[in-house]
């Protein structure tokens, strides 16, 4: 087993992603620049130009083509990567379904960003939440280190024959993509070659063994194809767990499906995802010093959604507060993750108050003060046994 030796570098999450792509020995990178993702592919281009990564960089004219090229490359058995954000992810949308429907193990990083109109180049998770029904496995990182490790894990997950589905590794646009922090990266590029061996087992195009990809499926068969994706997603849950465990064994870092802290016996547990978890963690530490019993948890795996783990978590606490950085319009509880959590609890017959807060939309600042004030508001609602009927749009000017 090849153990890695590490060097500790100051990297932004974008650069950490690029480093992971290099260390995953990716064969084809197709990409179109979009803020705040651009420096990912810029750095990959440098790696290719200076010979550190032997890969084909395909410069395309749009994200639609970027995903098309990744699909083509993956269909030939190449290890393919692309990166995007916001409108770029939206422009890819139809191809996302094709990539997963063709069961191609592409990995894509998304520097989560708000959507137009009005134009915002700033961070939130509306783009990521908008592609939740495309059958892509979705991991959301909260540090540059985790983003690095997750891209490498993503290839192991995607290329597993029980899965054969593409993977998104998402992280905060700007708040992570452009923040420098210490990251341990492998000293040698081949440290992961046993963890993610190149042995394509998915169906590939080969003139010696001809097959058709993306053909028509009649009403007699289409449904079964889609059900196979349902099964693959179910399998993915265990595979994500295994990939993380194995990574932990080999490289001494692992993250789990949900990260949690102090949930057992707490009065309230905050749940969120992405980089805001760090701010939450420091805020809660301050509140605990005042004697408050608060737990916190972070959803690392968004698709497949870890319903059972969420339900277990809920059983250990008295109420949940879900902080969402995206809005699903036209429903009373409009936090996408809050909705998933509520249905997870319903399925297990668990009665808990779930308070949904919308925060950090379009990079609206969230500080420790906001978290403390949200906690104050929740205590008030709990005190009056108030059930939440509508998400609270924290800090908005009505």
């Amino acid at each position: 087993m090849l153990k890695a030796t590490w060097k500790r570098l100051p990297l932004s999450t974008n650069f950490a992603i690029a480093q992971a792509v290099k260390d995953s020995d990716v064969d084809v990178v197709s990409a179109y620049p979009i803020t705040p993702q651009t420096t990912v592919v810029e750095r990959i281009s440098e790696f290719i130009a200076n010979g550190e990564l032997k890969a084909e960089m395909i410069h395309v004219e749009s994200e639609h083509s970027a995903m098309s090229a990744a699909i083509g490359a993956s269909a030939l058995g190449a290890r393919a990567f692309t990166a995007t954000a916001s409108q770029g992810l939206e422009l890819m949308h139809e191809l996302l379904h094709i990539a997963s429907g063709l069961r191609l193990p592409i990995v894509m990083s998304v520097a989560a960003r708000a959507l137009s109109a009005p134009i915002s180049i700033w961070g939130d998770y509306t783009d990521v939440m908008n592609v939740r029904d495309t059958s892509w496995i979705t991991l959301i990182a909260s540090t540059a280190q985790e983003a690095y490790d997750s891209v490498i894990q993503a290839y192991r997950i995607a290329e597993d024959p029980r899965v054969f589905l593409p993977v998104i590794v998402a992280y905060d646009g700007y708040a992570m993509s452009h923040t420098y922090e210490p990251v341990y990266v492998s000293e040698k590029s081949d440290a992961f070659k046993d963890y993610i061996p190149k042995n394509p087992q998915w169906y590939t195009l080969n003139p010696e063994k001809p097959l058709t990809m993306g053909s028509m499926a009649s009403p007699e068969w289409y449904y079964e194809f889609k059900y196979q994706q349902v099964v693959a997603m179910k399998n993915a849950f265990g595979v994500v767990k295994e990939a993380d465990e194995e990574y932990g064994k080999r490289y001494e870092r692992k993250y789990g499906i949900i990260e949690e802290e102090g949930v057992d016996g707490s009065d309230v547990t905050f749940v969120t995802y992405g980089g805001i978890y760090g701010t939450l963690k420091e805020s809660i530490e301050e509140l605990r010093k005042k004697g408050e019993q608060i737990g916190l948890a972070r959803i690392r795996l968004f698709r497949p959604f870890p319903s059972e783990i969420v339900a277990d978590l809920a059983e250990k606490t008295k109420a949940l507060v879900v902080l969402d950085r995206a809005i699903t319009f036209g429903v009373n509880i409009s936090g996408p993750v809050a909705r998933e959590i509520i249905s997870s609890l319903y399925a297990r017959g668990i009665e808990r108050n779930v308070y949904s807060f919308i925060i950090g939309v379009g990079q609206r600042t969230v500080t420790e003060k906001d978290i403390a004030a949200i906690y104050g508001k929740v205590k008030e609602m709990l005190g009056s046994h108030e059930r939440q009927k509508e998400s609270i749009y924290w800090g908005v000017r009505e």
Partner: protein
Amino acid sequence: MQERYEIRWHGRGGQGAVTAGVLVAEAAILDGKYAQAYPEFGAERRGAPVKAYTKVSEKPIYSRSPIINPDVVVVLDPSINKSIYLDGLKEGGMVIINTSKSNEEVKSLIGRSDVKIAVVDATHIALDVLKSAIVNTAMVGALVKVLPLATLDSLEKALHETFNKKIADLNYQIVKASYEKVKTIN
């Protein structure tokens, strides 16, 4: 030294405030410390006031919220209104300002007796070495002198990671000159 220091940089677009913030974090990380650096997530147009943030700590840093109450503010451009850069500065904190004014003038400009003030004529140093008024690395040199957040060796390394050899060497010369010349005036 306290466990964590939070530094806010104030410049105008094009002066390199963001790069300055990143350089200090990079050097601190190379020294084995924990650090975080990020720009203000707002407009970054050439000439517009820009903020950048650096946190340096002996322990891991989790919070990603902007620095509201900095320990230190570093002012690259003294023409920025002081209400902007003094905003939230902690009692007992420090202002490091690029200025050619006399100590008395600076003290009366800042007008706060509860903070320490350090001055350096960064524009002069930058013009002298670079023949250009890009003052960011001069302010980096001034900062690490008055507050030893990173070693000069690591700063030199970080400069070489960021720029080509010629530019890195010139900037390291600036860092050292400013390191020598910065003065605490109260």
